[in-house]
């Protein structure tokens, strides 16, 4: 039993390298297949993500109230998947703010992010022919690290009395500080993060929350170009495979623990599943 549960645990946490290679290749094949299909004009449905649809509403509310929109692209580094996704969402928020003449305030935790985010916001204003409204003072680097950033950001939010708050990216303990402050100011809040630990806090304080993979698919959802749709579809395909494997694992473990099947049979089945490399080695 120890061996079996150990293998199942390995399956869910640190799979065999062969299994990862198989998933990687499957992902590549799936992406190419769906890309070809979408380019040929086949419609692929993507379900609605309410949080993303509400970005327009949040900016609209800021217009009505005549108060700024607040955006934080997380406190992750530039190479973080959450920060990369946040850049696409910042582009959308900046475009809407430029279009409707709303002030956009962006708080950054790292100096590395400053030139990149500044460029994104400026380009969005330029695309809307509103470059004269662009104010570089509203994109601020709040130095010192996590909690210094949080306290400076909270002060800035309170002074300017923001109307809408968008927290997208990697957040940790400061997530609750930022979202709770915005909540106390009565701002409409949309948040998205890939940090599963912060999801409960954001759900308690924000109006709309993009949960992990919803968030990571956000930019693709907004753009809706064939390559984006194909990548989301491939992601779903792999997720379905994961679900099937999970069910197989649960059923096989239950059958073994209830004595319906022999341990040896289950172990061989599990090993065949997670060690496809043995097929190539004739094992």
């Amino acid at each position, binding site marked *: 039993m120890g061996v079996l549960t150990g293998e199942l645990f390995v399956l869910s946490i640190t799979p065999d*390298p062969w299994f*990862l*290679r198989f998933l*990687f290749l499957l*992902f590549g094949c799936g*992406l190419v297949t769906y890309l070809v299909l979408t380019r040929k004009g086949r419609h692929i449905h993507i379900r609605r993500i309410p949080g993303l649809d509400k970005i327009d509403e949040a900016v609209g509310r800021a217009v009505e109230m005549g108060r700024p929109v607040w955006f934080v692209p997380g406190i992750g580094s530039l190479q973080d*998947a959450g920060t*990369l*996704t946040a850049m*696409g969402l*910042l*582009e959308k928020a900046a475009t809407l703010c430029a279009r409707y003449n709303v002030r956009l305030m962006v708080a950054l935790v790292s*100096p*590395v*992010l*400053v*030139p*990149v985010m500044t*460029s*994104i916001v400026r*380009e*969005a204003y330029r695309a809307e022919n509103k470059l004269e409204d662009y104010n*570089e*003072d509203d994109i601020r*680097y709040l*130095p010192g690290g*996590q*909690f*210094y950033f949080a*306290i400076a950001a909270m002060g800035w939010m309170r002074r300017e009395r923001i109307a809408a708050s968008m927290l997208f990216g990697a957040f940790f*303990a400061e997530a*609750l*500080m930022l*979202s*709770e402050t915005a*909540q*106390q100011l009565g701002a409409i809040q949309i948040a998205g993060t*890939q940090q*599963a630990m912060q999801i409960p*806090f954001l*759900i*308690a*304080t924000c109006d709309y929350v993009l*949960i*992990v993979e919803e*968030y*990571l*698919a956000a*930019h*693709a959802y907004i753009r809706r*170009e064939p*390559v*984006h749709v194909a*990548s*989301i579809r*491939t*992601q779903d395909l*792999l*997720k379905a495979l994961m679900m099937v494997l999970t069910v197989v694992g649960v059923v096989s473990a239950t059958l073994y623990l209830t004595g319906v099947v022999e341990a040896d049979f289950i172990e061989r089945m599990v090993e065949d599943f997670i060690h496809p*490399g043995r097929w190539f080695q004739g094992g």
Partner: protein
Amino acid sequence: MSKVRIIRLTVLIAGIYFVVVFLIGGIWKESLDEKVFGEITPVYTDVIRVIALFAIGVGVVNIFMVHTHRIVRGRPNWEHSIVLLSAFIVMFTFAILKWTGTQPEPGQPYEGVAGLFDYVVTRIMVHMNSTIYSFLAFFVASAALRAFRVRGLESAVMMIGAVIVLLSMAPETAFPFLFEVRERLDLWLNTAVFRALTFGMYLGSITVALRMWLGIERSALFEAS
């Protein structure tokens, strides 16, 4: 070649190496692992570190340009820019003094001006950081109060779960039966949900990474001029 194309090409070439290592590393020839990957990978990671350092350098230069500009032009709150730049210069100087100072015995602090950096960090910054962190307790209480309002079936389920967890934290003699309920909630439901979220996170991250690598992420990073 345009700037955007250079970025895309660099990302693609850099990514190909890691994909090759991932796909054939450790399974093909030992000599390949030792002589090729074993020697190239450290060089490769050094190059990535150097590029990252350049990125930090660009960020610092940018900060100086923006804030010097603000001070010179006398823009609103220009005084804050003086504080920021002064703090940066002071800490940078302290760090240099520490770097050039005499290395103390293991376990002993730096002495004299070389110890200024550690003094500011351990005597001021750490305490300020802890103080701000302690505020979190009040934010948690305030958020919990709102989360516990029953507005529908889902919030009711959440509230019941939270009450069970809270009561189970009381001394064991008060609610002994709740301790086991809480453990099952935590180990069965919570673990399953977090694993599902973790699957989603990894798959989503792979998708974003793949789009970036292949240069098909038509994001602002690749399109901004």
